[in-house]
């Protein structure tokens, strides 16, 4: 953004004002100035429209679900299929459980891949293949990732519609996002820090683990939490992997039982999938209230992730620079 800021400063100083002192500027110059003003006005209006629309969407989502948002029964009870008054308790737990599992799998893999690409990979064929693969993965529609997950984890490996299948599908969806963020974070660490570490006789691995990764940590944490928001709201990759049913959960059930919350081989409908499912089935009597409530809960969680990402990143940054 710094170069852009400089531009604007330069732009504001040079462009409109310089022609002002000569009162006898020609009609063309006058026309150009009017054009410039009008264009600036239109651009500002466009930005205004976008911001208003965005705020309107968020307010609409939160307002339509507001009454459910503070309803403890709705947040904890089990969903109902044919009668009104169902809750989203299991879905809420499933969403967070899937998110934690996904991050546990995808963060180490992405960190490793990003370190390899920034520190070890020779410029050339391996890097190119890996970069192309990650780019391909990032542009794949999530429904395709979900279908691949169904084919591989659900059917070929016989895991069925399960949390594990879902977490692995989400991992594939999350890896390209994470690799890119971590790569950028590692590359943003000043070169001298790495050079100094290497000059002290550290290996590249030690330099990475003890110098680069700690220095890049604020950016990595921000990136991981932001990606968590994306994972939390993902549904297309989960419909055919984690499934569309939410067994009633009970902490006293044995671990192999489908009602044990931690059993990774049980089907698990998430909040986002729940919204999609009840809307495509359309049999729940209080459909619009339940989906509005679920959407509001989802939105609150995602806004929270967004805020946590920024606050945590800034706090870590402060801690690092103060030392």
């Amino acid at each position, binding site marked *: 953004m710094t170069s852009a800021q400089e531009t604007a400063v330069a732009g504001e100083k040079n462009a409109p004002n310089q022609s002002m002192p000569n009162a006898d500027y020609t009609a063309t110059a006058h026309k150009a100035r009017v054009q410039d003003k009008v264009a600036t006005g239109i*651009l500002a209006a466009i930005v205004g429209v976008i911001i208003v629309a965005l705020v309107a969407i968020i307010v609409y989502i939160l307002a339509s679900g507001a009454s459910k948002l503070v309803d403890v029964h709705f947040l904890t009870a089990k969903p109902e299929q044919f009668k009104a008054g169902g809750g989203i308790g299991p879905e809420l737990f499933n969403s967070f459980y899937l998110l934690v599992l996904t991050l546990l799998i995808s963060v180490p893999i992405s960190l490793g891949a990003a370190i390899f690409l920034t520190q070890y990979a020779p410029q050339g064929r391996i890097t190119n293949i890996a970069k192309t693969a990650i780019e391909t993965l990032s542009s794949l529609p999530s429904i*395709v990732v979900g279908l691949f997950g169904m084919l591989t984890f659900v059917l070929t490996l016989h895991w069925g519609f399960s949390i594990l299948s879902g977490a692995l599908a989400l991992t594939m969806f999350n890896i390209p996002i994470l690799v890119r963020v971590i790569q950028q974070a590692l590359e943003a660490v000043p070169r001298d820090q790495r050079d100094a570490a290497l000059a002290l006789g550290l290996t590249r691995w030690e330099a990475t683990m003890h110098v680069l990764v700690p220095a890049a940590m604020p950016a990595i944490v921000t990136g991981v939490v932001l990606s968590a928001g994306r994972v939390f709201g993902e549904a297309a990759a989960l419909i055919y992997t984690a499934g569309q049913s939410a067994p009633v959960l009970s902490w006293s059930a044995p671990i192999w039982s489908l009602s044990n919350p931690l059993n990774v081989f049980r089907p698990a409908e998430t909040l986002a999938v729940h919204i999609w499912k009840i*809307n495509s089935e359309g049999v729940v009597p209080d459909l619009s209230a339940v989906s509005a409530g679920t959407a509001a809960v989802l939105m609150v969680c995602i806004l929270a992730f967004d805020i946590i990402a920024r606050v945590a990143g800034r706090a870590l940054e402060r801690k690092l620079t103060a030392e």
Partner: protein
Amino acid sequence: MTAIGEKTVSNKSESTAEVVGVSPKRGIERRGQIITGLCVTLVVVLVVTLIFMVCSRGLATFTKDGIPLGSFFGGTTWNPHQNGADGVPLVGALPMIVGSFSVTLLSCLIALPFALGASIFVVEIAPGFGSKIFRPLTEVLVGIPSVVFGLVGLGIIVPWMRGLVGGTGYGILSASIVLAFMILPTITSLSTDALAAVPNSYRDGSYGLGCTRWQTIVGVVLPSALPGILTAIIMGMSRAFGEALAVQMVIGNAAQMPQGLFTPASTLTSVLTMGMGNEAMGTLPNDVLWALAMVLLIMSLVFILIVHLIGRKGAAKND
């Protein structure tokens, strides 16, 4: 990359490969290389497996079930459970292909003026506002889940369309408007990057010649940033083409040739989302769904390819 530092390190470890393990340092380095290398390999293997598996299932329609390519890509009737007059099952995918391309192009057309206008504003006119307020806001927009967009579409856009033109309110235009919101942040942030990457000396040159800011934007900044802006548009299209649930919720899901912008239609993704759960694996109706998935996969590869071609052309022009 520090060419010198790296070369010495790697040469040394190769020439004395037999003493690996003697020096703990070298062991550490090796281990790091292997662990991170495995991560990268895993990702590559996953991607290759994905492409292979989806394509092998998708091709079964043509190899195992013997559907001619022409009746799949050219047929306009989609009803895999029935045979047509010529004995070939009715698996014409053209309605979905046309549907997908229509919502993609239309949503881009709607989003582009807003995205481009906003990125010009935040780069050229108010950079402080751009980085402090506008970018965080668009990041929130990225985070809104697609089902929630679908729900907003159902709650606001579909009734609005119904009131405006009658009919059901479901259709290509409703889907395109919802998609336009979803791809707006993608196009905006990528074209913002493209505009910000234009060297300031270009702008100074233009101002030095007496141009106004708007003349500078139109005559200098936009043409130089064109490859980047094109990339942004393609990435937006790629996202729109692959979006499933939001589209499925508002397009009306009628697997017929689109009659217009206001009548129910369907896309590759919407048919896949709806159908995959209902057909048994290995049957013809299931195989053709995988063929649709393969088309989706190939299109997303084509989008990447286009981005690469634009990048290469841009690089060649700058040299």
